[in-house]
């Protein structure tokens, strides 16, 4: 009953309008109208990087190369994230619908869903839903089809250029950027790649117009977002919430009364300690998140938490570039040495520097973001690293 009650939203899982209705609405609009509505809505990518969706679609539609693709990134591998699975399970047609609208805007006739291998159990039902969806497209005379491509257990394949490599039958090693996917993506053709959730929002914005979405959230973080909430909480699960809340408000609603830290954005995100709950906004103006929110109470050792993350990164690093391949190993060895007393506490400073070097020199987002959790945990829980 506190004043901080978070606002629940129901855009993603709402099934009031049929896919067919929304597609008809979309096809009654010009591409320009659709892009302008998206722009006006302020929708930013929900896969982590937060690039404005309208711009991505617009840039791709403006390329001289006419063969273009739309890809749904359903590789969801960030620790603490499980919302895309739920979206694909509950409202798959809305995901496909978002892809179709994107295809209309960019002039694509082929789309792909890249589904992580861990979600293969979804495949049968998803394929059935897709067949139905293709039926709807046929009824409406829309020339677009989608195929589902399966991943095989590699977190890095969620990184867009690694995902293209994987779809091309290769090791999932990220490419150099630029060129960006809007210019050269899958098969080196202009490609829009969007997160599952982004596509559903784009679809719903086409239905409702920009206002309903834009009225939610803050100037930098418009709309609502689906959160995956886990860890020490009595209310673990999936919630669609308005953006713009502080960590304090979040903890008041989802904490167990003893929350000492919240990891916002998964292992590659930031760890917010209790003393910063009040002043930290969850969103692009504060700590961004692809939806992963993990709560830790005071019974947890933050050393163990960090060690677990580093193990994750060390295993999932594609090994292609030295700062990340060697950096992840050295960070892990380093905190182990400090914990065992083999290295002086001051060594942590050097490790922090190493993580910052990785941020600057690593080739892709994996290596670049190790510093996020590393610095925020080591800085705020130094004693736990040492004793």
């Amino acid at each position, binding site marked *: 009953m506190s004043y901080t009650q978070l606002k629940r939203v129901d855009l993603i899982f709402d099934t009031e309008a049929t896919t067919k209705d929304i597609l008809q609405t979309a096809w009654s609009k010009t591409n320009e109208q659709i892009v302008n509505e998206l722009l006006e809505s302020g929708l930013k990518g929900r896969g982590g990087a937060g690039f404005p969706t309208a711009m991505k679609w617009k840039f791709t539609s403006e390329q001289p190369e006419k063969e273009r693709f739309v890809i749904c990134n359903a590789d969801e591998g960030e620790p*603490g994230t499980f919302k895309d699975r739920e979206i694909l399970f509950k409202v798959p047609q809305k995901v496909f619908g978002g892809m179709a609208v994107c295809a209309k805007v960019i002039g694509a006739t082929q789309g792909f869903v890249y589904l992580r291998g861990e979600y293969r159990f979804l495949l049968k039902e998803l394929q059935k839903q897709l067949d139905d969806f293709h039926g709807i497209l046929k009824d409406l005379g829309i020339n677009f089809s989608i195929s589902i491509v399966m991943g095989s257990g590699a977190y890095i394949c969620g990184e867009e250029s690694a995902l293209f490599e994987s779809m091309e*039958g290769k090791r999932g090693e990220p490419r150099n950027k630029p060129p960006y996917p809007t210019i050269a993506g899958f098969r080196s053709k202009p490609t829009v790649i969007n997160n599952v959730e982004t596509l559903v929002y784009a679809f719903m914005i086409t239905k409702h117009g920009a206002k309903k979405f834009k009225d939610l959230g803050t100037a930098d973080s418009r709309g609502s977002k689906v959160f995956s909430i886990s860890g020490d909480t009595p209310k673990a699960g999936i919630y669609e919430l308005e953006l713009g809340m502080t960590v304090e408000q979040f903890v008041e609603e989802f904490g167990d009364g003893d929350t000492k830290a919240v990891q916002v954005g998964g292992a590659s995100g930031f760890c917010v300690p209790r003393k910063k709950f009040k002043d930290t906004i969850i969103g692009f103006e504060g700590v961004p998140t692809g939806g992963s929110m993990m709560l830790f109470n005071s019974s947890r050792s933050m050393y163990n938490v960090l060690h677990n993350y580093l193990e994750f990164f060390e295993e999932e690093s594609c090994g292609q570039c030295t700062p990340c391949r060697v950096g992840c190993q050295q960070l892990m060895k380093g905190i182990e040495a400090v914990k065992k007393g083999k290295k002086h506490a001051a060594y942590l400073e050097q490790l922090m520097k190493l993580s910052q070097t990785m941020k600057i020199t690593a080739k892709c987002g994996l290596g670049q973001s190790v510093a996020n959790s590393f610095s925020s945990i080591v800085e705020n829980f130094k004693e736990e690293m040492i004793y």
Partner: protein
Amino acid sequence: MPEIKDLVKGLAEAHGRTRESLIPILQGVIAHENYISDEAMTEIARELDISAAQVYGTATFYSFLDTQPRGKYVIRVCKTITCAMKGKSLIIQELEDLLKIKLGETTPNRKFSLLETNCLGWCHKGPAMLINDEAYTELTPEKVREIINEYIRK
């Protein structure tokens, strides 16, 4: 190994003989054989007209494309943070006791392999594991016993 040859040929016919078919073919071999043998890799290379090194390089990149012999049922227990917090060690312990193997091993009758894996996307219902494609969540040692007994009877 004529069976492997036929299997790979069939998969190549179903998926096509381009580089883009490589991973679907490798996944197909896993579905039938539980792992990708050297013979399978050389055969795939021949069918797709690429070098065996490329097949090997691709296969070994992906954690679900095992290149070591595995059991009929591959158990992958999530070891990432929230599952670790919710007691994945007890789950592994229970599985090791039940199957009488250690992590990373396969039972002598080639029925089960026990592995760890990273976040499975069931963090709100940890600990979680996969047996082949099937997900099992909110595990307790008792629940694990029931599940494994069912597989033993299969």
